[in-house]
């Protein structure tokens, strides 16, 4: 029976080990081979449905360590681990899932009040408290992003890795001979690889400062936007449809995993009080957002506005046909994501003065995905035994115009309703 991680126990089997364990077990390894055959063909779905051998193989594998294995962020054989994970989990999901389960080890909730990740995150996303940006409100010239570049330049590893990805992505910056070969168009694949190496090898306190430094003027915001050399790593001649971009991303195990991880750590699906999963673990969200950089789904700031900034991947919802809503929802997970916005602002302005009483963070229009709990209906807090918080009425969190007239009169202006006799 597969080693089930009990509640709270952090020990996960990584999928490379799980594959080895399965391969050492003849019963499991034969089924694993059959399963991979079932998933290769075009009619993958029907194979799992009609083909008895495939179903039998699946039944066995569901009990094997492969079913519950996970991968560590930044582990040595990360890509191999992810490939093993998807080799079995691709068969389990219809492939049309809007949110897929992340192959990375779940992130532990952050203990209060340490919202900003002073605690190291168990799953390998260790962070040291980012140095607070000394940027007094009044000082318009203050440029935390420039300070972040200085901090990086004065650190050997960061400077080396930063110069490496800039030189790769900014091909016109390269020496004559190489630029002549590559002409002026950059090599996006090599640029993405260099960016991933930068983010893997440089501690987050340097890389996150470059990515999430808070700005008070356009010069700073433009430097922040330029951090990933967007002309090469982000922009493209044509803007693809976001669902098409997602399809391309999900064909690459690395991109697919990091997109799932971003959704897992930055999207709140059920209704909860906090704006981020895992009890407002901002750091986990920032880290999984940063790890999308260097994949097909590379996100970036869309312009150099410093107050009302927006981040988005390079895609649009034009040409979505009947899937426009799904496309818009996918795009809004970047452009109107409360958790991500709070996390980025908390990183910049420090957690203490960033968090308002009601959990939202000051700053630009932070709109959660339209849901009745904020806008139209009483917040039905799911995990609180009682369906309704006493006194909710008082807070007026009701549907539309409050209308609780006594004595049988309807709210509408037309003729009052005849008083209703009892039932």
């Amino acid at each position, binding site marked *: 029976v597969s080693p089930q991680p009990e509640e709270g126990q952090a020990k996960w089997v990584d999928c490379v080990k799980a594959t080895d364990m399965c391969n050492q077990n003849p019963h499991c390894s034969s089924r694993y081979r059959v399963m991979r055959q079932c998933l290769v063909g075009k009619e993958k779905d029907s194979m799992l449905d009609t083909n008895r051998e495939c179903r039998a193989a699946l039944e066995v594998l569901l009990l094997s360590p492969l079913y519950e294995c996970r991968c560590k962020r930044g582990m040595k054989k990360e890509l191999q681990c992810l490939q093993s994970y998807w080799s079995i989990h691709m068969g389990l999901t219809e492939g049309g899932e809007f949110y897929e389960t992340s192959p990375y080890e779940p992130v532990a909730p952050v203990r209060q009040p340490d919202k900003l990740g002073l605690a190291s995150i168990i799953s390998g996303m260790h962070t040291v408290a980012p140095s607070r940006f000394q940027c007094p409100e009044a000082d318009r010239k203050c440029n935390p992003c420039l300070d972040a*570049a*200085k901090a990086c330049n*004065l650190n050997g590893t960061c400077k080396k890795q930063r*110069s490496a990805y*800039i030189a790769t992505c900014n091909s016109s*910056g390269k*020496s004559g001979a190489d630029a002549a070969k590559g002409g002026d168009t950059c090599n996006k694949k090599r640029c993405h690889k260099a960016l991933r190496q930068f983010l893997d090898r440089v501690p987050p306190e340097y890389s996150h400062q470059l990515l999430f430094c808070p700005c008070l003027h356009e010069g700073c915001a433009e*430097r922040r936007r*330029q951090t990933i050399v967007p002309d090469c790593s982000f922009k493209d001649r044509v803007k693809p449809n976001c669902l098409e971009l997602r399809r391309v991303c999900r064909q690459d195990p690395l991109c697919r995993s990091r997109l799932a991880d971003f959704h897992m750590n930055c999207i709140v699906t059920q209704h909860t009080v906090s704006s981020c999963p895992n009890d407002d673990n901002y750091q986990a969200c920032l880290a999984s957002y940063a790890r999308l950089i260097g994949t097909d789904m590379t996100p970036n700031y869309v312009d150099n506005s410093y107050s009302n900034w927006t981040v988005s991947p390079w895609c649009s919802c034009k040409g979505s046909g009947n899937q426009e809503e799904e496309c818009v929802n996918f795009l809004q997970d970047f452009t109107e994501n409360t958790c991500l916005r709070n996390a980025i602002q908390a990183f910049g302005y420090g957690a203490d003065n960033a968090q308002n009483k009601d959990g939202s963070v000051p700053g630009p229009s932070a709109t959660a995905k339209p849901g009745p709990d904020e806008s139209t209906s009483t917040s039905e807090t799911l995990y609180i035994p009682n369906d309704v918080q006493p006194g909710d009425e008082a807070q007026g969190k009701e549907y539309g115009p409050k209308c609780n007239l006594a004595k049988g009169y309807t709210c509408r202006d037309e003729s009052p309703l005849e008083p209703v006799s009892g039932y």
Partner: protein
Amino acid sequence: RARRPKPCSLREVELTVSELGLGYESDETLLFRYCSGKCMDHRRNYDITLERMRRTGFSKKGRKDKVSNGPCCRPVAYEEDMSFLDNNSRYHTIQEVSAQAC
């Protein structure tokens, strides 16, 4: 006691890119490493002869060649690329600015 000349070694100083004097305008700060000091322990018979020729010999031979007096304190290796964003939001990568070893 006559001050003994410092041996040739790597020094560093923080400069903004603009202060490098290469013409790039950028407020980014970086570490400029350079070689400074005397290379007393690398002198050879050649240097002794050359020094003597410089002082006397050359004029006698009707020569006005300019020659360096003794081994120079120079980098033997340079840091590779150094990239930065200039004040017009353009990236540049420059080579062999900072010394790595002397």
